């Protein structure tokens, strides 16, 4: 036989449970725009029944816990894709700025200056004694050297900027790993006493997402919380401890990345913005620069050799037209310069007579001469243009597809963890009505208790 007070208990328990469920809805609605928030669900369970002889009475409802709706595996895939996207994005951005230097349609690039220089030699060939034609050749040679200087300088500047980005990335990584370690300790403190750590887990997922954009992260869930390492095993976070990375410039001034254990991990990164920056800084730009150096040195050397074989306007043997490129050619493009300022020193003559144009013709023929890699200057340059364009175009395509995949995954995450206002409104009605019903039960029991209390008191 149940009692009115037992019924009252059930109703009051229901009021508490529904209010708790309403709280969850309210929190979901409040966080509808919070990045990284995973919606929460109240878990309502039946209380254990009371058995009285042949009768079994339910003893009401209780709010067991509030749980976040999340898919950890999906989160891992999102983080992985974010790393790919981070690397590609950094690479495309860096190389897009570099490729501006190789725009043949705007003129003033190395390709057009090579053409202009040989064109000026063609003109000189028709009038080898003309000082103005000779001056035109020197001017064109100066423009050619300048275009090599400008392109190489712009690439070096780009490399320096990327080098700064590397430093900033490392600082950001350290900030994030610090936050994650902090969150780890908050999460395990709550979980140790059996409490809900959802909001910290959400924040941690968000921070790991940001970290993934910067560097390749592997996640291992251990008893002591979450451990994060780079894919080659350099520890970033273990439980409540974070391991800061540091940077040290190498001899060339390029920041190298060291683990807290002092290991240089610069070459071991596989994805993330940092790796994309390093790829631009350490691979793509150096390769471009070295190709430019090869071209500049090849041209300067071939033209110098030819000029030395001829005779200048005064009948003397020719000297260098360009300052000889450094041995090993490194820096040839950035340092390219015309060696002479006196136009009469151009060795146009092949036999010492001032009106001879024999050697101009040989200088002109350098245009079709193999300079490097079995190619003449124009072909070699167009190959550089192809390579830089191809790198940007390929990585842009990869970036687009990575962005699509990421979008897809985030959509999927939204469909699982996102707050739907429709759903919350429906829940609100549902919980409100249940709450009102429970309140009505309390009211009814109260009237019944009145009836009991007033029993017999009525005259």
């Amino acid at each position, binding site marked *: 036989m149940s009692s009115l007070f037992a019924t009252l208990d059930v109703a009051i328990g229901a009021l508490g449970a529904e209010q708790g469920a309403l709280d969850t809805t309210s929190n979901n609605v409040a966080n509808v725009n919070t990045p990284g928030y995973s919606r929460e669900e109240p878990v309502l369970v039946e209380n254990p029944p009371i058995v009285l002889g042949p009768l079994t009475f339910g003893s009401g409802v209780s709010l067991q816990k509030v749980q976040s709706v999340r898919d950890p595996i999906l989160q891992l895939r999102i983080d992985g894709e974010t790393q790919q996207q981070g690397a590609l994005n950094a690479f495309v951005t860096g190389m897009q700025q570099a490729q501006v230097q190789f*725009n043949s*349609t705007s003129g003033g690039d190395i390709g057009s200056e090579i053409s202009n220089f040989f064109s000026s030699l063609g003109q000189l060939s028709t009038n080898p004694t003309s000082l103005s034609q000779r001056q035109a050749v020197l001017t064109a040679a100066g423009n050619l050297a300048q275009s090599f200087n400008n392109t190489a300088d712009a690439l070096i500047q780009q490399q320096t900027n990327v080098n700064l980005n590397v430093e900033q990335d490392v600082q950001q990584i350290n900030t994030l790993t610090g936050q994650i370690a902090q969150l780890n300790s908050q999460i395990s403190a709550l979980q140790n006493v059996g409490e809900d750590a959802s909001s910290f887990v959400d924040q941690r997922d968000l921070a790991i997402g940001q970290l993934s954009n910067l560097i390749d992260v592997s996640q291992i869930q251990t008893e002591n919380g979450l451990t994060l390492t780079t894919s080659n095993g350099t520890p970033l976070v273990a439980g409540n401890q974070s391991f800061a990375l540091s940077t040290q410039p190498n001899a060339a001034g390029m920041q190298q990345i060291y683990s807290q254990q002092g290991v240089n991990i610069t070459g071991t990164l596989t994805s993330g913005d940092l790796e994309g920056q390093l790829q631009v800084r350490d691979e793509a730009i150096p390769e471009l620069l070295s190709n430019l150096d090869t071209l500049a040195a090849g041209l300067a050397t071939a033209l110098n050799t030819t000029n030395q074989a001829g005779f200048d306007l005064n009948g003397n043997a020719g000297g260098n037209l360009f300052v000889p490129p450094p041995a090993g050619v490194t820096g040839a493009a950035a340092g390219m310069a015309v060696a002479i300022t006196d136009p009469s020193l151009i060795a146009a003559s092949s036999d010492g007579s001032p009106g001879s144009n024999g050697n101009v013709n040989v200088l002109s023929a350098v245009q079709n001469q193999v300079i490097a890699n079995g190619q003449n200057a124009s072909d070699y340059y167009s190959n550089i243009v192809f390579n830089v364009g191809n790198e940007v175009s390929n990585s842009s395509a990869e970036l687009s597809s990575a962005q699509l995949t990421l979008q897809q995954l985030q959509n999927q995450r*939204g469909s699982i963890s996102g707050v739907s206002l429709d759903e919350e409104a429906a829940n609100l*009605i549902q919980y409100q009505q249940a709450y009102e019903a429970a309140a009505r039960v309390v009211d009814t029991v109260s009237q019944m208790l009145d009836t009991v209390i007033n029993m017999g008191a009525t005259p």
Partner: protein
Amino acid sequence: MSAIRVNPYPLPGLLASLQTTEQQIQNDLSQLATGRSINEPSDNPTGAAELTQNLAQISQVDTFQRSMSSVNGELSTADSTLNSVTTALQRAISLGVEGANGPLSDSDRASIATELQGIQSQLISLANTSYQGQYIFAGTAQVQPFVADPSQTSGVRYDGNTGTNSVAIGNGYSLQVNLPGSQIFNGPGAGVFQAVNDLINALQANSGIGSAVNEVNTAYNYVDAQRVFYGNGMNQITDQTNNLNTEQVELSSQQNTIAQADLPSVISNFTTAETGREATLGAIGQTSQMNLFNFLPPP
């Protein structure tokens, strides 16, 4: 409650697709603005490389064209100069014939000789013709090639050399642009100046005039034959100019094929992208305007 839950936040996805569309629009716009399909190497790496080579080839053809026009000037100057030389020699021949045949007094012959001396000076001046500051009959020397010099039997000294220049007028195609003055004016048998000088001496001495006239005649024929060289050169330039014009047209059309924007299709893409953009914007505007909360009764 078992229907598949959809993502309640379509906005990020819509914004991403809006961005893609806007990128497309940017790309189309830059193609429309420049008329080129390649505005940076990554637009079409192979095309960009071909374009670079194509521009180098066009520049080379331009250079050949410019060289030819300047060489042509030199050749035609030389040709017309030699024409004047032959005219002067014809006059010398007829003066010589007059001096040999007519019953002339000493003073008549002296005046013919004086006229011939004038012709000789004219010939020297013609042989010293220059084009754009360069003596065209000096070989590759940069000096006045013919100088009056009484110590020479011909009365004229050649200070030029025997060098010749060639100018590239095509890939692997070069044209010799001059003959040394010594070859033209000091030909075999009798040079121009020698012959005229001999005729003057013969008239003054009144002996051997006939053979001196023959000498001038030989010189005349020889100079006339040398003109073929220049005529030939001008013909080659005419032919090569035509060839290069054709090549230039081909290169330009190749350049258009590589780099010119296909405007009708760009415009159509642009319109499609614009429509897509408007549709996406419309969708974003509609999104989440309504949810169940709007329909809850007021408290």
